[in-house]
């Protein structure tokens, strides 16, 4: 039931870096929580053969968006899609962020990991949850689209916000006096640093992990992640995640 053919309404370049693809939502997206993903068929033939996983970026009740960077054959092909084209989508898949309305959150994004931010923002705001947003990127082009008065930014080249990375921002903005929880999405190195930070401060971080995967639904066993409580087995990023608690996994 979660396999659907959807109609693209928009596919455009947002800034010098990222693209946004928007399609008409169906029933399966109702009551969606942030952090889930889609596995999208790129071509009608056998190349590229495998679907590509994308974080769900936004859902406004009518349309669903994904945000992507052109990094390889798959994303290059998807950037060629036009409004009106049909798209073969499996999802929403996986487990998203677990939001407790009584908590205070710090959102930490790096690079294209900022993708789930719009839906998270919508979700947190509509539930009156208090949060702070930290975004890191290589340069201005990586993050300017998401800039607003509530967002703190860091760029590696110093072209926007502070010079440095999102971990530097985190260290500046977390004083340790409040029991906050981190919601993070970004590259492996960033998530590893967020986890170390959370472990050290004895707070929890929810980490959205990514992996190469063939199916996205637990058939191929291609996306293992080491759980912290059992060295004799792996969890699967697609089924058991993609969002994991920082104390649940070893990075």
């Amino acid at each position, binding site marked *: 039931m979660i396999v659907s053919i959807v109609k693209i309404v928009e596919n455009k370049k947002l800034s010098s870096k990222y693209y946004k693809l928007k399609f008409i939502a169906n029933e399966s997206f109702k009551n969606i929580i942030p952090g889930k993903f889609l596995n999208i068929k790129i071509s009608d033939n*056998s190349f590229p053969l495998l679907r590509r996983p994308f974080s769900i970026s936004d859902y406004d009740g009518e349309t669903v968006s994904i945000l992507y960077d052109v990094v390889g054959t798959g994303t290059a092909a998807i950037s060629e899609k036009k409004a009106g084209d049909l798209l073969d989508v499996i999802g929403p898949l996986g487990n998203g962020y677990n939001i407790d309305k009584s908590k205070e959150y710090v959102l930490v994004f790096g690079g294209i990991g900022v993708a789930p931010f719009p839906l998270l923002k919508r979700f947190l705001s509509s539930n009156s949850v208090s949060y702070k947003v930290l975004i890191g990127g290589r340069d201005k082009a990586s993050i300017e689209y998401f800039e607003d008065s509530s967002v703190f930014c860091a760029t590696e080249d110093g072209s926007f916000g502070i010079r440095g990375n999102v971990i530097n921002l985190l260290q500046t903005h977390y004083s340790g006096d409040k029991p906050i929880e981190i919601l993070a999405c970004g590259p492996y190195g960033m998530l590893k640093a967020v986890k170390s930070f959370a472990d050290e401060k004895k707070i929890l971080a929810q980490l959205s992990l990514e992996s190469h995967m063939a199916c996205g639904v637990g*058939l191929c066993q291609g996306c293992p992640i080491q759980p912290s409580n059992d060295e004799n087995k792996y969890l699967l990023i697609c089924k058991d995640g993609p969002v994991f608690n920082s104390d649940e996994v070893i990075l």
Partner: protein
Amino acid sequence: MSVLEVELLGLKFRNPILLASGTVGYGHEIGEFIDLNNIGGIVTKSISLKPRKGNKPQRIAETPSGMLNAIGLANVGVEEYIKDKLPFLANYETKVICNIAGSSLEEYVECVKLLTNEVSVSAFEINVSCPNVKEGGLIFGNNLESVGKITYAVKKVSSKPIIIKLSPNVSNISSFAQAVKSNGGDAVSAINTLVGMAIDYKTKRPVLSNNTGGLSGPCIKPIALAKINEIRSKVDIPIIGIGGISGYTDALEFMIAGSSLVQIGTANFVNPSIAEQIIHDLTDYSISNNLSNISEIIGSIRLN
């Protein structure tokens, strides 16, 4: 008898479409997408005597019209398979073929012994050709004597048909099919994955943590067809065809080459309900071509 019903190894298959081992879990995973009652059979994920964790990531790499995997036989082990996995499959009419992996002759035998009295298991597929584990796997699959010995040993302790899954990584696959037949094996499935490698030119490292992996998908279809044709022309043994089948015309080609049944593998990853689509299309084909039964096309190849 319906147009797609096929009898093989004393078993009645609703249709010739089986789901390949390692691509549909233990049934409940794919059961979210298809009704297993509609499928001829399911070959469950390779089971070893003890649970196996499998290889470290990265386990998957995409290649032109195909993919490499090096999962490393991650599985729950025989005990949990019997306790937690088989009861789910017992609810369905689909034929369950239990795929078994081992790192020694004794392990294959022990697994079959433990499973042979399970009523939900209709047959065994013996995996002597996994390219992704250090012990067992291809060491057996590429050795004629080992394949013969394993076939003989598991057949002796099994009350169910024995299918040996053959490696394509050999020069003469028909000699391996002959070894299976001579040692009492009931059928062969062909082909398992081909050993392949993907390299990242920037880091000079293989993409997979295991360095090499098993190549599958549409890119291996021509190799599979040639191997099946070779077996059919030289050895009188039932063949279960597998290798890149993604649509009903592929399934027909495999049957024409000599397969009595076919397995859908990598295509399940791309479209988890593909098996039902193929069955639907095969029915349409059979009716529009006035076949009284699909088995009329098995081995109907007209060689030049």
